[in-house]
């Protein structure tokens, strides 16, 4: 019987990929384990092996095709004498495409809103790029401008970055400035802090911030506190960056949002961008800052495209929130991937006649209280949205600030939408429930609007 070969998922967050090369042709007899094709994901180019034996009856996707959805049929294997047309209809492909559709819609919407930002002149020429490319450009530009800027971390050099953020940097800047480290977060973080005292501006890439737990003593006790303890003699001009928060199906130890943890520490600056433009502009600012900056990225967002100003040297200042969408009924405050749910929710709420103002904090330390308070004084209602745990969240602190400073302006309690108070489960259905959803944001907004 004919067997369909489906586009494989080659990483936890992969939704689509490029069929770079076929290594078999129609009529070839393949064995299980034989390499059928090379598939390029946004992280790497991978070889794809056959599971079943048979004869290649049909190649359904041409070499070089980009955007092939996971689970879409790419070839048909037949048995001797069988017709390739006997394969069943590609039902799964349609389902896969439908699942990812809302994400694309948000990205498209983001592109439109980005143009109206106050961070660059209105007539600025824009270019489309992914968050990944924006981060890479920011590092490359700053490394070109300042010879003391260097990157260190696991797989940043020869491997070209575990998530391809540093792709090409080793070729341009060499192994002196793009330093592959052993898997020893505690040690290399301490080395980077020492190097920052010694006159360098290190960028430390953590493969994910989950691994930075090994190094948190050096980040907090050595990097964040020394300027104060030395009476202002020794700041640590450096950036700690990497993927933060949940990816997909990687379980409790690899799925945690550390925004609230690091934001609790005086001496650190904390950045958590959503768009590619902010990722680029804020990372450049972070590299130039004379303090230790925690720069929290998100694996799911790496591949998303946004409009970015096509300017030779474009930066975004710390401590300035961005109003993505103006509204009059309620203020939704978020940051990082939480913005995805917030913007989706605002779109859905608009259909129900609720006008939501959506604010992206962008930097959590310093935090732009003025923009948040001014908005809440206008709308009189506030919902905060973040992926992290509820206890001691950014939202709970913001709620207390709002209550203490503008209590009389509130028409409803502030609600904090967060991830659930549980370690991240692995099972797909449980994980979905543990994570924040757009529906929860919509429900919270309706609740504070008494609708």
């Amino acid at each position, binding site marked *: 019987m004919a067997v369909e070969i489906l586009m494989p998922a080659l990483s936890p967050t992969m939704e689509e990929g490029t069929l770079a090369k076929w290594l078999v042709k129609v009529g070839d007899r393949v064995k299980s384990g034989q390499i059928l094709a090379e598939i390029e994901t946004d992280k790497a180019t991978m070889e794809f092996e056959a599971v079943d034996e048979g004869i290649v009856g049909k190649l359904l996707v041409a070499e070089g095709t980009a955007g092939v959805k996971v689970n879409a049929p790419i070839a048909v294997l037949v048995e001797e004498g069988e017709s390739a047309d006997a394969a069943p209809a590609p039902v799964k492909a349609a389902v896969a495409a439908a699942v990812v559709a809302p994400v694309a819609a948000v990205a498209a919407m983001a592109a439109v809103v980005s143009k109206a930002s106050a961070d660059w002149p209105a007539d600025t020429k824009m270019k489309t790029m992914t968050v990944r490319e924006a981060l890479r450009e920011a590092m490359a530009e700053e490394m070109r401008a300042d010879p003391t800027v260097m990157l260190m971390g696991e797989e940043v050099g020869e491997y070209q970055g575990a998530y391809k953020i540093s792709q090409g940097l080793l070729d341009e800047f060499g192994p002196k400035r793009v330093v592959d480290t052993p898997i020893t977060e505690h*040690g290399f973080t*301490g080395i980077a802090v020492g190097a920052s005292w010694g006159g360098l501006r290190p960028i430390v890439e953590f493969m994910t911030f989950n691994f930075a737990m090994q190094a948190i003593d050096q980040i907090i006790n*050595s990097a964040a506190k020394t300027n*104060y303890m*030395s*009476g202002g003699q020794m700041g*640590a001009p450096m950036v700690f960056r990497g993927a933060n928060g949940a990816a997909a199906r990687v379980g409790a130890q690899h799925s945690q949002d550390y925004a609230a943890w690091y934001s609790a520490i005086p001496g650190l600056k904390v950045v958590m961008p959503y768009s590619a433009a902010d990722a680029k502009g804020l990372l450049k600012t972070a590299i130039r800052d004379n303090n230790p900056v925690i720069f929290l990225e998100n694996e799911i967002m790496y591949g998303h495209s946004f409009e970015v100003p096509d300017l030779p040297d474009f930066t975004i200042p710390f401590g300035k929130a961005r109003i993505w969408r103006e509204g009059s009924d309620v203020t939704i405050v978020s940051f990082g991937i939480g913005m995805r749910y917030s913007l989706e929710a605002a779109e859905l709420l608009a259909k129900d006649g609720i006008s939501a103002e959506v604010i992206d904090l962008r930097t959590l330390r310093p935090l732009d209280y003025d923009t948040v308070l001014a908005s809440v004084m206008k709308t009189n209602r506030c919902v905060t949205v973040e992926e992290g745990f509820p206890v001691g969240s950014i939202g709970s602190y913001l709620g207390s600030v709002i209550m203490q400073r503008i209590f009389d302006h509130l028409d409803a309690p502030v609600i904090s939408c967060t991830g659930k108070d549980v370690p991240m489960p692995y099972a797909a259905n449980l994980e979905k429930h543990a994570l924040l959803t757009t529906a929860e944001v919509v429900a919270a907004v309706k609740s504070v609007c008494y609708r």
Partner: protein
Amino acid sequence: MATKKEPAKSNVSKDELLHYYREMLQIRRFEEKAGQLYGMGLIGGFCHLYIGQEAVVVGLEACTKEGDKRLTSYRDHGHMLACGMDPKGVMAELTGRSGGYSKGKGGSMHMFSKAKHFYGGHGIVAAQVPLGAGLAFADKYLGNDNVTFTYFGDGAANQGQVYEAYNMAELWNLPVVFVIENNQYAMGTSVKRSTKSGTFYGRGLAYGIKGEAVDGMDVLAVKAAGEKAVAVCRAGEGPYILEMMTYRYRGHSMSDPAKYRTREEVEKIKTEKDAIEHVRDLLVNAGLASDEELKAIDKEIKDVVNASAEFAKESPEPDLSELWTDIYA
């Protein structure tokens, strides 16, 4: 440790020996004064005295040049004095006054002087080890021939991050001298009760790092070993490990009843191995210095230390506005 022997006549100059004598004595008198001020309630919190270990830092400082860096643990007063920091500024930091090196905001364990290339003063056991490797990383990157002296104790030597730092320091040939001040006790736990490794420097061999054990009570032996280690690092062949066999006379901190060792053990070392007495004997036996000459130095140092204590008492507490400064650079 060996019994006290009549010191052989050394070929070291009078000036050099007097320098060691003066430096070591200053640390000892300073620490005694700090202990006194602690007893009077003028110094608070933790206060870890360096008495007994003076030869280690004084001998190694004699191997340094301008631009070399040093950092250590919380037992740091001696290191600061030895690298030329002002005793007044150090003592005033101990009393938490505005005239202290960190404006009173760091305290005994957290003091720094960028001007003297002293990078702390670290309160977290062994944190300074990768930090020191990092300072050396920067020097290598910047292409100079500076060396970083990273001091830590036998207690810190059991921390994991030490070995992460060793691995990378050797991998990248960083110009760092790892100085293990093996004073035999990690707080109250003797080396014998914390490891079955024969030596601490020997662990570096597993990473390919050269190293040796040194009589840390003999400033001349320390100096000789230091010269060797520094030469290796300046030649781009670092790192190097020096395990200094030394002894602390006082408790771990001021609140240590020292029940983990006998009074006899401490007395034996003081009598047979004291680093300052050793240099004094060298000077006197060789006829290089008279008792009067040494007494004059004693008096001079006493005055410097008393002046530092006076300064530390007189210096005002930091202005309350200082609470909110220096959080960010």
